[in-house]
């Protein structure tokens, strides 16, 4: 089973990630439906609490803006970990659209990207299946202070430096 780091703990991912081209009937089990499916079957998906939406790096997070306060789980896919679009998507969902539900990184999600993902607003990480999720947990704590503002610390270091010294 896919391991999921959530709230700093290792869990098992309950949700099936449905294919990007999925167009079947609404699943009854826990699942992440692709953005295109969600935009067509919005009310039905929202009505079912065990469903979330996933978006790919070539899609547009703005499409989810009207539903940010209704969705409880959004996943952002990283087709390759070096495809950094999802970092911007996450900040936009959190900071602009006020999404407060679970924001999950899926796809090529590895130990060494967790720290930046966390700072951009992800709180759940579906670690790539061939990797050791326990070892990856350590990646969440690579640095104890940062220069920039981010989703977790909205004040950049230059506004706080004096009080830290």
């Amino acid at each position: 089973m896919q391991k999921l780091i959530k709230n700093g703990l290792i869990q098992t991912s309950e949700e099936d990630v449905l294919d990007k081209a999925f167009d079947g009937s609404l699943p009854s089990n826990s699942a992440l439906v692709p953005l295109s499916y969600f935009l067509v079957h919005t009310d039905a998906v929202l009505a079912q609490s065990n469903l979330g939406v996933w978006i790919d790096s070539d899609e547009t997070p703005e499409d989810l803006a009207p539903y940010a306060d209704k969705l409880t789980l959004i996943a952002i896919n990283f087709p390759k970990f070096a495809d950094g679009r999802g970092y911007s998507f996450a900040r936009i969902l959190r900071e602009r659209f006020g999404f407060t539900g679970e924001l999950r990184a899926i796809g090529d999600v590895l130990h060494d990207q967790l720290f930046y993902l966390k700072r951009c607003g992800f709180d759940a990480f579906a670690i790539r299946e061939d990797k050791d999720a326990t070892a990856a947990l350590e990646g969440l704590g690579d640095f104890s202070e940062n220069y920039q503002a981010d989703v977790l610390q909205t004040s950049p270091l230059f506004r706080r430096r004096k009080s830290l010294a």
Partner: protein
Amino acid sequence: MYKYDGIDTQIIQERVTQFRKQTQRYFDGTLAADDYLPLRLQNGLYVQRHAPMLRVAIPYGMINSQQVRKLADVSRKYDKGYAHFTTRQNVQFNWPEIGDVPDILADLSEVEMHAVQTSGNCIRNTTTDQFAGVINNEIVDPRPYCEIIRQWSTFHPEFAYLPRKFKIAVNACPDEDRAAILVHDIGLEILKNDAGELGFKVFVGGGLGRTPIIGSEIRSFLPEQDLLTYLEAILRVYNRHGRRDNKYKARIKILVKANTPEKFASMVEDEWQHLKNSDTKLTAEEIARVKGFFLEPAYDELTNNPASYIQAKEGSTAFSNWIKRNTHAHKKDGYRIVTLTLKKTGIPPGDVTDKQLEIIADLADQYSFGELRVTHDQNLVLSDVRQDQLFEVWEKARSAGFATPNLGMLSDIICCPGGDFCALANAKSIPIADAIQSKFDDLDYLYDLGEIDLNISGCMNACGHHHVGNIGILGVDKRGQEFYQVSLGGDSGKQASVGKILGPSFAQESMPEVIEKILDVFVANRTDEELFIDTFKRIGMAPFKERVYAKAD
């Protein structure tokens, strides 16, 4: 110079620990080579033709004597006793072992140095004018803004996996541009508006490489407090919309061109509306705090042209040539700016030995408040030398090999490491530089020619900035043979332009002769005091083409 506090130190130390663990996981096999690659690149570690290469950051080219001594130390302890200054105002070690790199980074961190983001698809070292803070005609010292950008771009969580590398340069001189801001992903020109407030003119989408493009202005005045939020907006637009399907079309210049600069500017403007009033907006206190690190050193109250200096110039033509070529007017009476040239014939441009590094550190301590600047043309600057001490500095620099009075001349060549070291290169570049320097070693002839930028790159990635050389040389591969393509008319300054290709490429051995013919055409056509670039702009390519490709009689 900026000085770390406890937080800056802690961040750099945590980076060393992070990289040590990543390297351990790479060696024990739990971190795959492909997954380690972008991580090591963001720490300046390449795997090159013969050995790994480690690029160490010198933020906006500022380095102190203690740091220079540490570089000498590292070169002895882990390398072959020399280092190489690059065209990005950084320094490289060509022969470290991968396993030693965490220790090297730990050693460097003791003197506030690191290799953060010196490579990889992230925001690189911000560069500026090597004469920042010591010249008369700048609006304001640009270095505090560079340091503010450095901190903002260091480990920025959103912009570590951009489509491609990203370079920012800052200029504060209204009538000169030694930072070549128009060939950067973002170029910032510091200026004052009519109300006397400081701000930036913002250019985007300049760059060299395979598709050389001059940057486009997207904002005529950005107030200084909006610097970081606006940069963040540009980077976000690029991170989201820059091409990721083809690495040769992934730089921001392609995105700007595809959308038109006007459209791109409006995309940035839309994004910025969401960011401009966030806490990332700079405060007057922060700008003042960082400016506090770049105050004037304790200059002596002196007058210009002291008697001993005038006498020394009159007594030695060699000294007065060096003064004319390799030193520059200082804003403070009684001082001059000295450039130590690392372009001695027979030595690869930018290379210095451990012993030379120590001499350089001593010179800085003794004559220039212990600080140096690295230039993008791979030389070093002592920014604050008393005029009455210039003769001593010259004698010491000369005996150490740093006083070849060829600054800005044909033989002051910008040159990448090329096929001798670099895995990407199509052709060698250093032997071409060497052959040209050897052929044109008559200083009187060089002075007569005046300033000419000759830049050499060993491949299309253009690390030797050949596109903006008045004479540019590019190594190309033709059926497995190394050939060289020549371009003319490039310019990296205020009137930035990309050179045009002269014609079919040449074999290595004919390069000095080709350059000679080009110079002959210039000498025959120039008017009094005209520089090569001006003659070229006036007479065009045809006379050069005709002479170089003329059939032998």
